[in-house]
């Protein structure tokens, strides 16, 4: 399978950030036409390693060879020239520019007094068609869905003639269908002789697409396995250092109606976001909302977090009509977990303890006459951090330095204690609660949601990850173009049917259950 000369050779790569050793003497080879998966917990050093490879970071030690040639460190331009292409974990696109602009950048000599845009456009469309990555070259990136952006990122690399493609968590935010088409693309790429490094937290995918798997833990390479000879369980254990069991749902009694939406309409700038949405969630019940990003889940989540007002319709919690004001929702003991933890979940520059109490700072528990009761707030935070196992060096560090998993735990802890310590929230609204989390963290988040439901909370989970919904939701509804289908018992749903419904197909060929309201 591999030829004599490896496409890529990393030798003894070490990278330190201050005292922290993010990569510790890592040596790896990537064969031509091979897909190598990189696995590891949050913060294990995966992104750091590939960033060094691409020249974003400079390694403190070690060296890199590409097709036998040494790669100069810290120089993305050289990496590109050597045929390395990278798709970042957080997309590196300019929202205000067109797809063509984003792709074209850097491909022509900077001092050339003109730009061959027409030729470039043709070549872009050609490349896109060859690999099945259809996009509109003239669309502004800001208007694209996450999946389309992903494609643009890959196109950027392919357009530059990448021979080695690095994909850092490409599927974290993709729908199953989008992931599926990505895998098809990958297969095409490999047959064309490209080599791929693939980073993911989803073990099924890893097993499916890769030939070999390299596992990092705490910055060290702990193991390299042939994919054929390993299992999910083994990989999970290698990553976390202990065995991981994902919690599963058990039958629970359902109580009173908690959340009720009926005939809800919302629009923004002339565009309908929510169209006649109705939904009921009872105490002790977990309802999952599936759907491709951009079909109104954002609006639904905003509505249920109190940051968006409905134009029409009725929104109530425990029989009480709700206004579009986060404080009302907090006051009614609604726990809210936002989709984007960095942009919405926390104020990164403020210390952890202030973030922990931010939702309830105005309540007498944490302030009097406008003066913050610092000691009470810090004591509370310390308990929260212990209870939810948030790993940090102190509650005074800015929230931004927490890793994704720890930040999520902090937000979870804050949300679940909205009711006050030891009291269960009435309703939990969780939007993409496990995006980008490693398997251990995912297990933890699921455990928390299941426990809360068992204790009597109504739970609404919005997720694009069907595995997640099938694992914890009692009922699942699909959102498409602002309309919400009926929430059907999970037992009666098939993945395929839901996948189709998410893609807008009303053909209910499999189970016969109509998944769309329309």
């Amino acid at each position: 399978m591999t030829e004599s000369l490896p496409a890529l050779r990393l030798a003894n790569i070490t990278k330190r950030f201050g005292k922290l050793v993010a990569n510790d003497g890592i040596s790896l080879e990537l064969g031509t036409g091979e897909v190598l998966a990189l696995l590891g917990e949050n913060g294990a050093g995966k992104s750091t390693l590939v960033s060094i490879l691409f020249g974003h970071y400079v390694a403190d030690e070690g060296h890199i060879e590409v097709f036998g040639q040494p790669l100069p460190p810290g120089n993305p331009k050289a990496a590109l020239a050597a045929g390395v292409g990278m798709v970042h974990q957080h997309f590196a696109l300019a929202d205000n520019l067109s797809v063509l602009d984003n792709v074209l950048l850097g491909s022509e000599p900077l001092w050339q007094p003109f730009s061959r845009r027409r030729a470039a456009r043709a070549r872009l469309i050609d490349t896109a068609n060859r690999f099945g990555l259809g996009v509109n070259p003239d669309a502004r990136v800001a208007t694209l869905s996450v999946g389309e952006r992903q494609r643009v990122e890959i196109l950027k690399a392919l357009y530059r003639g990448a021979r080695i493609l690095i994909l850092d968590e490409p599927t974290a935010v993709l729908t199953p269908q989008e992931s599926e088409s990505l895998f098809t693309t990958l297969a095409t790429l490999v047959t064309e002789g490209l080599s791929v490094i693939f980073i993911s937290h989803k073990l099924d995918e890893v097993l499916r697409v890769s030939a070999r798997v390299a596992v990092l833990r705490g910055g060290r390479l702990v193991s390299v396995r042939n994919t054929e000879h390993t299992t999910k369980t083994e990989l999970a254990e290698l990553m976390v250092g202990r065995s991981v069991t994902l919690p599963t749902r058990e039958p629970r009694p359902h109580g009173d109606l908690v959340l009720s939406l009926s005939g809800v309409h919302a629009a923004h700038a002339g565009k309908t976001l929510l169209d006649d949405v109705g939904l009921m969630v009872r105490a002790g019940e977990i309802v999952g909302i599936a759907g491709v990003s951009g079909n109104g889940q954002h609006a639904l989540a905003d509505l249920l977090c109190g940051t968006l007002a409905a134009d029409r319709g009725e929104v109530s919690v425990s029989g009480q009509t709700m206004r579009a004001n986060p404080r009302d929702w907090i006051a009614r003991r609604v726990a809210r977990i936002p989709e984007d933890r960095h942009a919405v979940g926390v104020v990164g520059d403020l210390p952890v303890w202030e973030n922990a109490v931010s939702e309830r700072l105005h309540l007498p528990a944490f302030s009097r006459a406008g003066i913050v009761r610092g000691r009470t707030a810090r004591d509370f935070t310390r308990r929260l951090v212990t209870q939810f196992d948030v790993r940090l060096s102190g509650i005074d560090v800015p929230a931004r330095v927490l890793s994704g998993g720890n930040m999520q735990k902090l937000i979870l802890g804050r949300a679940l204690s909205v009711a006050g310590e030891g009291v269960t929230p009435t309703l939990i609204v969780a939007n993409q609660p496990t995006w980008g989390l490693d398997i251990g963290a995912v297990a933890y988040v699921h455990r928390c949601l299941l426990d809360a439901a068992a204790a009597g909370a109504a739970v609404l989970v919005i997720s694009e990850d069907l595995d997640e919904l099938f694992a914890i939701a009692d009922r699942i509804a699909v959102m498409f173009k602002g309309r919400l289908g009926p929430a059907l018992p999970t037992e009666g749903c098939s993945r395929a049917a839901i996948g189709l419904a998410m893609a807008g197909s009303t053909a209910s060929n499999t189970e016969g259950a109509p998944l769309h309201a329309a």
Partner: protein
Amino acid sequence: MMDFLTTLFDMLGSASFWVATLRVATPLILGTLGVLICERAGVLNLGIEGIMVAGAFTGWLAVFNGADLWTGVLVAGLVGGAFGLLHAVLTVWLTVSQHVAGLGVTLLATSLSAFAYRVSFPQVSTPPTIEAFAPLESLADLPLIGPVLAGQTSLTLLAIALVPAIAYLLYRTPMGLALRMVGENPAAAEGQGVDVIAVRTGAVIAGSMLMGLAGAFLTLSAFNAFFFNMINGRGWICVALVVFASWRPGKALLGAVLFAAFDAAQLRLQQAGGVLPYQIYLMLPYLLSILALIVMARRAAYPQALMKPYRKGER
């Protein structure tokens, strides 16, 4: 009221009004294009007010010392570029606050020019003058715009020509694309092999050169001597006009001409025998600009990385 309206219409219909407008607009066009280039690359350059002073002074000084007018223009551009380099070193390389660096550069350029002027001319009581650019009468025969252009000097034509040139540069060349990209998402630009620091530095220098020219227009074309304080807030107006223009060269031209028209109109209305205090007329351009901003540039789409320092290897 009727009186007022007749004055207004007479004014708008007269070539001389538009000649004046274009003349008043010229330094604003140059300065706004300068700010635009800097900001498109993600760098706020509040040094403009001072850089214009330096350009006005050095351009004039060169000509006073015997250089020809175009050499004076070149000198002003180079000096503007030098202060641009200083601003770039501070904000792009060292990543200090763009606000303070800009205000600092303004203070430095202004005071250095004043100091240099006084050291060079310790005993003057009337500012020495030069032979400035003369209006291009040969254009008078052009249809429609002839009479308006004929009152202008080559520098005004240069300023107008720069508008499509810069639009072309920004939208049709690899350099322009790189420039816009480092102002939108520097990390992405870096990832595609663009040297963010170099492009930003170049943009700030180029933009500042235009600011130098904007200043030089005042001493080499609009007038023929250098005065302290003669920039008189024109640089700040350019900073405002860029927002009005939503960072587009064409709209920058429109904005500069609009502001200049308000200013030219203000003078004429004041002279038409206003009963109002003269300050009201002087306020007009500013108030109308705010109004225009409300109408035209609500929720302006900033270059997303504007004022965000880029430090390699940081996230």
